[in-house]
């Protein structure tokens, strides 16, 4: 079935290059999205029984694949509206749509890989396809962002590869000839801790570029800023999840060894620093897209902190990633409407609620949800993170984290209220407001986050519990 999925992806992407009609190109992307959703349902039904060479997935893979299948479809719908408004050339849409399918396949590969080398190769493929997706508008400023992204990603991914090489030296010592997660986990206790520690450092630094955490977060922010907003939405959600999974796989294999406590300390330091940098950068942010990009960085920091807190923290981390993906992508899609109405997303734009009342409401609810206010699902996951922090007796850290979150809360809410309710400073075209399909899809995403916050969905909890 996996190979059928790959073949359909190749067929759809290849056909797009032969077509001249934009509508059929978009239709092929929707068709691929449908296949992707069906494939994910198949993975869910066969969970635990399906054995594939190199792709032995678990329930976390299925959860992330579901998020990818849904958000990819919503992003494809928004992209069609985006390119229609921009009147992009057939060639641009052709490249975008074909590469878009490739980007999806690369992410699916990251989620399903059962070997570190393969996972790394798929992460590399997300850079290759992601850079092409960012370079959509062919402007000088976009080229600058793409160059920085490609260069930093290349260096980071190379460092991650050094980490994998160090891991393989350690694996050879215990007689392993490949880096499959299961084999490594089985032999984890016999492996040399020094090799494992150095490998973890390289892997964390290397994949930090995909998660948008310390130290390689800058280029990720720039990429989200200049990319078309549907791509920014995917970078803030499904790509962030992929980066996290790459780090989590290492953690999952070695959290029972003697390096567990050391790994937790490193993760905690990395998460807290990320949170503080996000708060500091938000103080001087000048456009709404960057503001939400820094908000993603804040949540990535929280997730890394959660991972360092043991089993309860891991549950919180996956819940947080799920809710964050849904809400943040909804917000990025709404940012697209603001851009369309105001020809930009600079922080001095005001009166959006009067321009577009429904869009304004969605932005307001989405922003409140992303800040973790009840009844958002993020409230539950943040509550779990703080509970774990307190149970682990990190009192001082709780104070510092709350301080950073308060700063972020204040800045985000202040800027969103200014954008929505301050009097408008310029005239606007009402016919550029969001279409019914755009608004409904965004509404569904925001509603989903609230639904998960109010009702404890046992499918979601069972999926996460099964993996940790």
């Amino acid at each position: 079935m996996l190979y059928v999925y790959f073949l359909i992806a190749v067929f759809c992407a290849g056909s797009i290059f032969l077509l001249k009609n934009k509508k059929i190109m978009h239709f092929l992307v929707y068709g691929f999205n449908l296949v992707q959703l069906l494939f994910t349902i198949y993975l869910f039904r066969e969970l635990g029984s399906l054995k594939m060479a190199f792709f032995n997935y678990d329930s976390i893979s299925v959860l992330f694949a579901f998020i990818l299948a849904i958000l990819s479809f919503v992003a494809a719908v928004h992209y069609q509206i985006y390119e229609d408004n921009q009147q992009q050339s057939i060639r641009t849409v052709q490249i975008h749509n074909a590469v878009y399918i490739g980007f999806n396949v690369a992410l699916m590969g990251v989620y399903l890989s059962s070997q570190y080398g393969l996972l790394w190769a798929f992460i590399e493929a997300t850079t290759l396809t992601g850079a092409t997706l960012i370079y959509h508008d062919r402007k000088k400023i976009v080229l600058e962002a793409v160059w920085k992204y490609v260069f930093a990603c290349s260096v980071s991914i190379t460092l991650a590869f050094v980490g994998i090489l160090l891991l393989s030296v350690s694996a050879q010592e215990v007689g392993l000839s490949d880096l499959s997660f299961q084999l490594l986990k089985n032999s984890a206790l016999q492996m040399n801790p020094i090799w494992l520690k150095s490998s973890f450092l390289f892997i964390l630094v290397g994949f930090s570029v995909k998660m948008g955490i310390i130290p390689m977060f800058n280029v990720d922010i720039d990429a989200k800023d200049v990319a078309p907003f549907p791509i920014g939405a995917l970078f803030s959600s499904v790509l962030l999840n992929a980066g996290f999974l790459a780090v989590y796989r290492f953690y999952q294999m070695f959290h029972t060894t003697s390096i567990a406590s050391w790994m937790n300390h490193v993760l905690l330091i990395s998460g807290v620093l990320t949170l503080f940098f996000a708060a500091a950068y938000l103080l001087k942010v000048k456009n709404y897209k960057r503001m939400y990009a820094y908000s993603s960085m804040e949540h990535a920091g929280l997730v890394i902190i959660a991972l360092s807190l043991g089993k309860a923290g891991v549950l919180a981390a996956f819940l947080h990633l799920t809710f964050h993906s849904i809400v943040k992508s909804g917000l990025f899609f709404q940012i697209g409407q603001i851009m369309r109405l105001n020809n930009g997303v600079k922080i001095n734009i005001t009166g959006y609620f009067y321009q577009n009342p429904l869009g304004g409401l969605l932005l307001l609810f989405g922003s409140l949800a992303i800040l973790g206010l009840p009844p958002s699902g993020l409230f539950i996951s943040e509550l779990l993170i703080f509970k774990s922090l307190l149970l682990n007796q990190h009192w001082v850290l709780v104070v510092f984290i709350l301080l950073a979150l308060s700063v972020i809360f204040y800045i985000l809410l202040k800027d969103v209220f200014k954008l929505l309710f301050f009097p408008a400073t310029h005239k606007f075209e009402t016919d550029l407001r969001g279409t019914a399909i755009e608004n409904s899809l965004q509404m569904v995403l925001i509603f989903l986050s609230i639904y998960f916050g109010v009702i404890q969905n046992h499918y979601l909890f069972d999926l996460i519990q099964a993996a940790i």
Partner: protein
Amino acid sequence: MNALFILLFAVSIFYFSISVNVKTYIHLLGIQGVLLFLISLNGLHELSYVHLIFVGLETLLFKGIIIPVYLLNIAKKNKVTNIKNFKARRKMKGFYLILTTTLVFVFTIFLGNLLKNDFLNVKIFATAITAVLMGLIFIVINKNITLHIISFIIIENGVFLMAIAIGNQMPMMVNTAILLDLFVSVLVLGVFFNKLAYHFHDDSSDILSKLKD
């Protein structure tokens, strides 16, 4: 014999530190490519012939010829010749750079001996890690985009050398390292660096500062 090639590879890293000519840098990259070919020919004796041919093509053709020729053309087109003529000067003088290289080498030899095991060739490991670390230092101290690319290829060569060190037991790692090279050559050099060279005529990384908060 292999020890000699590894030693020459290490010397090439020192040569990067003292040289100021971009052409020399690119020639050194070519030499490193050939040395990697010779090291892999001697080191990867347990691999199949098909695999070895693949590694040979990658090192000799790609690293030894295609990448240096491409970079020479770019340097010629952008009139990048001697780093003393750059608008954006290097942040570290040659003497301190060679001192840093020596210290890094001593550190990696010490580290290699500390981590020594039956599967690790300390000489290759120390040289590879030195290349990776020095590549990173070169990126940090230089503001020129062409030099950033050259520094990145030094890191790449270091990683490839490391992959060779464990290649007999894990040929998959060598394959992946080759994949990394192809990716970098096609995407970084082939597509975006070319576009950057076309759109921005100044070669300093200062021109890439429009995107900020």
